[in-house]
């Protein structure tokens, strides 16, 4: 059974002419052990999706289940841990007091509580500052405390909203390993982030959201199996990039030229020959793995075309 199920989940805000859809007919399932990345531009619906699963806001229509229970019910809430963006922790408490408070609600004995708090401190590497008041924490420290808190409350589903941003690269690397370990212990982890490289490294699967709609649901292993030809163009050739975009399905503009997916038998040689034919001067070309950014740019481009 999937731990997380969303079927035609829609959430709108406001009424009448001011009504705005934050999430539209979102459907997906996630099993234990999966790490699902959620990427998309600002306002795509990433945080809304996580807040619905955590029970913070209700659905307008559709179904969302956690371990078979409707989201927002007490039974479902007790299985979900969320690290929201920005982190929400009382500034008056110390990190240890906050974790101990949360652990008390998930423990049957003092010993179990101490173990939960100890594990959480170790997971998020909080030992150096956990005794200090939260009001004195830096952004990175708060993010780590938020991750530890989510690990305590989310025994089955972990929702991380930009939790790994603002953390130094070395700690970031170790925290990624910890998140993978949490997933290996049977949790579903949903990670919403703008840091595409981090999502590529962490997630087993990625949902691309744009305008509240799921535009793509891609396994990260598939990204490695696909190749992209990246052409660097300058001057007048850049103005002709539109012809390449029209000719090759899935081609997108990059900062310096065009990226063309190599699928359906298309080769770099064919593309370069076509450029010569159309008198498009190519300054440089290279072949790389398909990046999450390509999928995101294509999805947002599709949204712009629909609009």
């Amino acid at each position, binding site marked *: 059974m999937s731990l997380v199920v969303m079927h035609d989940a829609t959430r709108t805000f406001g009424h009448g002419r001011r009504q705005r859809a934050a999430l539209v007919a979102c459907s997906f399932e996630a099993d234990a052990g999966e790490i699902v990345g959620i990427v998309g531009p600002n306002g795509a619906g990433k945080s809304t999706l996580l807040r619905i699963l955590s*029970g913070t*806001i209700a659905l307008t229509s559709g179904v969302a289940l956690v371990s078979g*229970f409707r989201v927002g019910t007490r039974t479902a*809430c007790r299985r979900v841990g969320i690290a929201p963006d920005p982190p929400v922790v009382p500034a008056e*408490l110390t990190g240890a007091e906050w974790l101990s408070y*949360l652990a008390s*609600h998930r423990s049957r004995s003092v010993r179990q509580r101490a173990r939960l708090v100890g594990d959480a401190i170790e997971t998020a590497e909080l030992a150096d500052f956990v005794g200090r008041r939260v009001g004195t924490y830096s952004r990175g420290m708060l993010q780590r405390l938020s991750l530890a808190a989510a690990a305590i409350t989310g025994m089955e589903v972990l929702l991380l909203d930009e939790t790994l941003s603002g953390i130094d690269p070395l700690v970031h690397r170790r925290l990624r390993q910890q998140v993978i370990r949490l997933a290996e212990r049977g949790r579903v982890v949903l990670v919403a982030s703008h840091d595409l490289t981090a999502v590529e490294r962490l997630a087993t699967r990625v949902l691309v959201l744009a305008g509240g709609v799921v535009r793509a649901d891609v396994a990260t292993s598939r990204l490695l199996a696909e190749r992209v030809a990246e052409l660097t163009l300058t001057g007048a050739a850049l103005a002709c990039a539109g012809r390449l975009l029209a000719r090759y399905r899935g081609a997108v503009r990059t900062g310096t030229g065009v990226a063309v997916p190599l699928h359906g038998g298309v080769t770099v040689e064919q593309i370069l020959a076509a450029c010569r034919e159309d008198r498009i001067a190519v300054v440089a070309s290279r072949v790389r793995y398909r990046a999450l950014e390509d999928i995101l740019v294509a999805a947002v481009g599709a949204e712009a075309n629909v609009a």
Partner: protein
Amino acid sequence: MSALSLQAEVVIGGLLVARHRAFHFAVALAFSLFLLAGASGAGAAAIHTMIVAAGSLGAVAGMRLLAPGAPLVSVRRVAATWWVPPAGRLAGAALFLAPVIAAGALGLIWPDEGWGMAVRAAILCWVFAATWAACTLALAPLLGAGSAGAIGLIAVWLGGISPSAVHQLLDGAVYLQRPAVLAWNVLPLGWRAARALSGSAGDWVLLVAWLAGGLVIGAWAASRPSDGGVLREGAA
């Protein structure tokens, strides 16, 4: 519900109140009132001073317990049995109200009225403070902590006026007079607390009923989603 959950709520209730600036100001205000009343030989007005100080402390403490932000979000996050967070937190806050109220009773009531009256006054003021803490606790998730605290403070400070005085005050405004007098009779105001000291059981019942009502409304307000949607329990 485990004993650890309740204990955790009592502890966090105490910490949220005891470490917040607003409560520190309220304690300073209460001691200033006690000093002022003691220095000016308050006599019969001593109990009214005690009631106003205790109510103010309660209103300020209560507004923190389910304040929008981390205190409120934490209730949803731990998903405890519905009555545990508000009741536990109120109990934690009440522990910090007790010594201030006891000090007031010791300084203002005991010298003139003796031990018996001082203890009764302290218990009454503690219940009155807890009642207003429960009321502002219930209002905070709906109106915000600042508004809830302000409403509580205004009610506590104006509540010493008796209903007959309100009736006289609004003699010219018939449409306002009736609802105002009705409200003055129904709300847990200071004049009623002062009367409760003379032994009327009905006044005690009303104060405790408001305390219980505040906790129930607070629990409801804290457990609903932030946009007010309705959630149903059970497997789908």
